[in-house]
């Protein structure tokens, strides 16, 4: 009987693996969508993996003894070197497999870091990993600032967000005054087999992309927007909603670059105005109409550019997703 009821509940989540590779009971803040993203990524990969994780929120909340959350081989590295350590794991496994020292089975090597560990301090290691062509997945769980040390800006912090090191005020009306670094674009420029953006608010899309990344014949890069109620100053129960809004306003478009072919994963007929997304977030509270217009303009331009990329690179009979309301 309980089995059946479980089945019923899980019906909409067809093929959703039940195994948990990151256990609950960790120390993430209420409403943390980053740990949700990690959970989905691990589910999609399965237990045969080695995970190298940079210093950051996910490392801190998951590992203090005796409360490890990890049900997979996991190594905490320094801040800047998850991609490099992952490269070593991948190369080491390859050598051992060749010598017959480890069973000849597929083990997915994953390196994971936050936006600081990926777009700032770990950037060089990441680029090296792409260039050398390691068959592994790099996952950036992007909550758009250094949340672990208390909300300092990173190069992935969007224009207009107030953080403790880009405080909004008289001297700096916008708070953060540069735009978010285009990590997926930079990854794609390395001509690696697979690059995708994802958001746990759209978990089936996320998990499909992880599965593709796993099958890629070289480095794969996943950039996951991870809503952070603590750092964005929103109520914890709104995390999923803000993830959806980020996608539906075009602030964080979902797309993939599969062997150089750009493809939208979600293409609303009409983007919602960015103001819908910005309002209610404490980090954007200081924005006035002028600044919101600047953000809207940036989003529109980026969206157009993305569409052009899909047209330019896509096959003539491209399988673009049906337009959604």
């Amino acid at each position, binding site marked *: 009987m309980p089995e059946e009821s479980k089945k019923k509940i899980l019906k909409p989540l067809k093929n959703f693996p039940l195994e948990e590779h990151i256990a609950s009971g960790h120390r993430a803040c209420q409403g943390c969508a980053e740990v949700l993203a990690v959970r989905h990524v691990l589910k999609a990969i399965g237990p045969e993996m080695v995970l190298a994780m940079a*210093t950051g929120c996910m490392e801190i909340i998951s590992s203090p003894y005796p409360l490890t959350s990890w049900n997979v081989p996991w190594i*905490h590295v*320094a*801040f*800047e070197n998850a991609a490099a350590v992952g490269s070593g794991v991948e190369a080491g496994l390859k050598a051992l497999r060749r010598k017959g020292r480890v069973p000849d089975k597929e083990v997915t090597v994953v390196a994971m870091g936050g936006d*600081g560990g990926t777009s*700032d*301090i770990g*950037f060089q290691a990441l680029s090296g990993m792409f260039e050398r062509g390691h068959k592994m997945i790099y996952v950036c769980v992007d909550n758009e600032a*250094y949340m672990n*040390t*208390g909300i*300092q*800006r990173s*190069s992935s912090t969007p224009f207009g967000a107030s953080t*403790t*090191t*880009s*405080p909004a*005020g008289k*001297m*700096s009306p916008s708070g953060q005054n540069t735009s978010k670094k285009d990590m997926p674009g930079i990854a794609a420029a390395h001509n690696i087999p697979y690059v995708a953006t994802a958001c746990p608010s759209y978990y089936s899309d996320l998990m499909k992309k992880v599965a593709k990344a796993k099958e890629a014949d070289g480095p794969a890069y996943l950039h996951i927007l991870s809503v952070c109620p603590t750092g964005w100053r929103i109520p914890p129960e709104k995390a999923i909603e803000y993830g959806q809004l980020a996608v539906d306003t075009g602030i964080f478009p979902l797309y993939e670059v599969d062997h150089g072919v750009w493809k939208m994963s979600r293409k609303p007929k009409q983007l919602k105005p960015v103001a819908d997304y910005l309002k209610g977030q404490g980090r954007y509270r200081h924005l006035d109409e002028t600044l919101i217009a600047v953000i809207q303009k940036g989003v529109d331009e980026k969206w157009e550019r993305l569409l052009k990329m899909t047209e330019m690179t896509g096959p003539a009979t491209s399988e673009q997703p049906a337009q959604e309301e």
Partner: protein
Amino acid sequence: MAEKDLLTGEHFIHGDAACAEGGIAAGCRFFAGYPITPATEVAERMAARLPQVGGIFIQMEDEIASMAAILGASWGGVKSMTSTSGPGFSLMMENVGLGMMTETPCVVVDIQRAGPSTGLPTLVGQADVMQARWGSHGDYGCIALAPSSPQECFDYTVLAFNYSEIYRQPVFVLADEVVGHTTEKVVIPRREDLRIVARAEPQAPAHDYLPFDSAGPLPAPMAIAGAGYRVHVTGLTHDERGYPVITDVVQERNVRHLVDKIRKNADKIIRAEQIHLDDAEVVVVAYGCTARVARQAVEDLRRRGHRAGLLRLITLWPFPSQIVRRLATTVKAFIVPEINYGQMAYEVERTAGGGVEIVLMPLMGGSIHTPEEIEEAVGEYL
């Protein structure tokens, strides 16, 4: 009336904030840094304060870039500073060497946490003492100041800037997590009571100017970019003009100068607080937050009539060798409590020679000594 660049008056702030205020008071107008516990608050304060005084705060992509940026800013003519903790301090080391070799004044605040590697990010350590001294490859002189309170975070950051200008090199403020996160009264003095060393400008005509002259007791004044002097700045071994000369002869002059400018001026640089040392039988040598505990222990012992004394190190580097050497002839033992597995204790042992007992009281990090522990250790030799 306090002005924005000097908040004269009494404040209730933590050590990290006091380091930032000390920097601004000393004339620092450029800060490049990277978030790291427990030093992030220095950067946060600078991010809010520097724009108010016409300065620039930049958050860099890592500590390598932070250190490089403050060297660049210094050559651009601005007093510059960064702050970090263990892992970031490690990353800075190559550029610390560049700063030493190019004789570039700047200040690095290291709020020490327990290592190695990520260690205890939020808890106290004092294990960067030897890294500060020897962390970058090659030989150079080192100045490192260890504050014991938020007030001293202010005072010694000012002093560090002064030293960096006089001796033309990166100077370290080696605070620790306890001092950095302690909130206490900090008195910021009036402008006329504050000694600030301005950057010296070269007086020689352009064709005679030697930016790396080593003939005098102090380095030559530094010509900043755009001041009309032709200056070649390089990390290669260079002659007095700054041009790379890859010979043992020039290397001999170059490196001797980098070491000797500190070694020969050590008497002027060294600061140490000597408490009850005149008739002391046992001397506690301590610094940073540990010095405050040690002071309590020594005062307690004195009240009970024991001849205990405290040598509180303010400059860890240069190390006050002469004081230790002199004490070594009269005391029975040196007790060295520190939050590492024996870094300063080696230095005390080395300078004291063999005739006196050296007792290391190590803590690996994450906690501080209690006065009782120190009293007990001292008591064994009384």
